[in-house]
């Protein structure tokens, strides 16, 4: 080995070394650094280091590299230990994945008494003030017009005519069209391709029955799984068996809070026909009417019928659900936040008698596409919601 290494070194000096010799040199360096050389060879090697800067440099470089490898190895092992500890502690219940308000609990423990006193004073004050306000204030006029579509007589008549024309044209080809006249309408969108969709609560509340219509004009009957007028969210389920499930939806639900000024777009059915209408705008305030933190304020043009439509950000994530606009101001539209959908799904899941297992959307697959393509993909998952 000694002689081979020596040869290799000499060859290297003459810049004629081969891969084999280079390997032997490396081996020599490694044995030298690991103190595995016999004394005689070591002496020769050290001599060589002194006389030959190139060998010396290789030794320095390799020792640095080995140190780096050593640290790298420690780092990797430490990281895997950390991961083990993490899952071990989660399993043992010592730490909780998602225990958000820990600091608040600490604070609560600390200031319990102060808070109690303050709260009772505040409570009394608030009660008396609200009593006074209630007594003196004029009866409030709702400034928000919910954007469900009140279909007037003319449209109804027109639809009847349409119906007759359709019937004449198609004869019995549209058996799913409900016979009665609709009361109002809005927009809904799928959150699970199996046939679950989200819309605004005010569209479907107090309905005798609810139907949806896709852009091709097909009708499906739906039932409401969940209605929350507070957050203006309703979750519907398609109960018609001629509905063809969609395997994967193109968009996703956003988990974080949207940012001020973010560009948004929506699609909806403000017309009585199932013609889809696109609009874009921006997030103009992070809270809604009177500082409501469950909603956003948007600057987007919206009309009756747009209610329940999804608000998308540029990467195709749903950030909210359009719910209404302020009648006393121009271009002020409000949308319920996506977070409310999560809450709704959670509520549905909690009800153990419910057999519906709603699987949430994967990451948005239309991220980075241009707007036209995004719309093309979203279109099929949008429905006009019609209340009877």
């Amino acid at each position: 080995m000694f002689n081979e290494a020596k040869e290799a070194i000499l060859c290297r000096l003459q810049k004629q070394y081969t891969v084999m010799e280079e390997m032997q040199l490396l081996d020599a360096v490694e044995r030298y650094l690991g103190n595995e050389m016999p004394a005689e060879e070591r002496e020769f090697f050290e001599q060589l280091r002194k006389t030959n800067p190139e060998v010396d440099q290789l030794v320095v470089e390799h020792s640095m590299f080995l140190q780096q490898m050593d640290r790298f190895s420690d780092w990797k092992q430490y990281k895997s230990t950390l991961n083990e500890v993490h899952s071990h502690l989660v399993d043992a219940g010592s730490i909780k994945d998602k225990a958000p308000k820990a600091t608040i609990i600490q604070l609560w423990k600390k200031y319990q008494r102060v808070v109690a006193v303050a709260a009772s004073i505040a409570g009394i004050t608030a009660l008396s003030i609200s009593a006074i306000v209630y007594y003196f204030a004029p009866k409030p006029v709702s400034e928000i017009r919910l954007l469900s579509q009140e279909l007037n007589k003319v449209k109804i008549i027109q639809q009847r005519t349409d119906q007759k024309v359709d019937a004449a044209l198609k004869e019995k080809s549209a058996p799913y069209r409900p016979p009665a006249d609709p009361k109002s309408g809005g927009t809904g969108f799928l959150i699970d391709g199996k046939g679950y969709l989200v819309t605004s609560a005010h569209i479907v509340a107090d309905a005798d029955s609810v139907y949806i219509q896709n852009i091709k004009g097909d009708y499906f009957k739906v039932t409401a799984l969940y209605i929350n007028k507070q957050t203006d969210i309703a979750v519907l389920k398609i109960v018609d068996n001629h509905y063809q499930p969609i395997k994967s939806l193109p968009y996703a639900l956003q988990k974080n809070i949207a940012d001020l000024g973010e560009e948004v777009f929506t699609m909806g059915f403000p017309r009585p026909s199932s013609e889809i209408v696109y609009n874009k705008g921006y997030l103009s305030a992070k809270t809604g009417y009177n500082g409501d933190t469950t909603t956003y304020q948007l600057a987007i043009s919206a009309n009756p019928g747009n209610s329940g439509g999804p608000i998308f950000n540029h990467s195709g994530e749903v950030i909210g659900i359009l719910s209404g606009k302020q009648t006393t101001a121009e271009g002020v539209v409000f949308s319920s936040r996506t977070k409310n959908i999560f809450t709704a799904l959670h509520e549905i899941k909690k009800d153990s008698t419910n057999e519906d297992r709603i699987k949430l959307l994967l990451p948005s697959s239309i991220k980075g596409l241009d707007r036209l393509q995004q719309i093309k993909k979203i279109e099929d998952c949008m429905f006009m919601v019609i209340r009877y």
Partner: protein
Amino acid sequence: MKTDPREIALLEGLAKDDRQAIETIYKQHYNMVQALIINNNGSADDARDIFQEAMIVLYEKARSGTFELNCLLKTYIYSVCRRLWLKRLQQQQKFVPEIDGLSETVAVEEELEVHGQRNTEFQMMEKAMQHLGEPCRSLLEAFYIQKRNMLDIAGHFGYTNADNAKNQKYKCLMRLKKLFFAAYKNNTP
């Protein structure tokens, strides 16, 4: 402020790769960090990442022989995580909120700079390893990371003898060095 002897013992444990020490620190401080991250636009996964990175900073500190923190371990971890999270938010070009912590913080910028440098080096190494391909990667991992001996490796990878395995190892090592140093030179000014 003098560091609590119990906390010094924990750091000494870290330096010796004592799992018990890791668990203790984890139990005592993880929930605080998770609350910080989640209350500031982050998720539980982010919290886990950030906390583990802070644990690595602590590990590096302990390994370098410094057990004196000049503040409570809790304050130290909090400050490191806060800094790391702010940086992460900036990288994501998310709106950076004013993180107003309830706990006091200490200056950790310098240490984090050293840590950041080291971290990029590790990432370069990881990348170089990935580019290497099989069987080189497994072979080098077995020798330099799992520190198994050559005879054992030769048996496992099906080489006829230890010398063959060794030759193969050196071939791989030369390639790895080339990849690593190429990245290293590009990254250091």
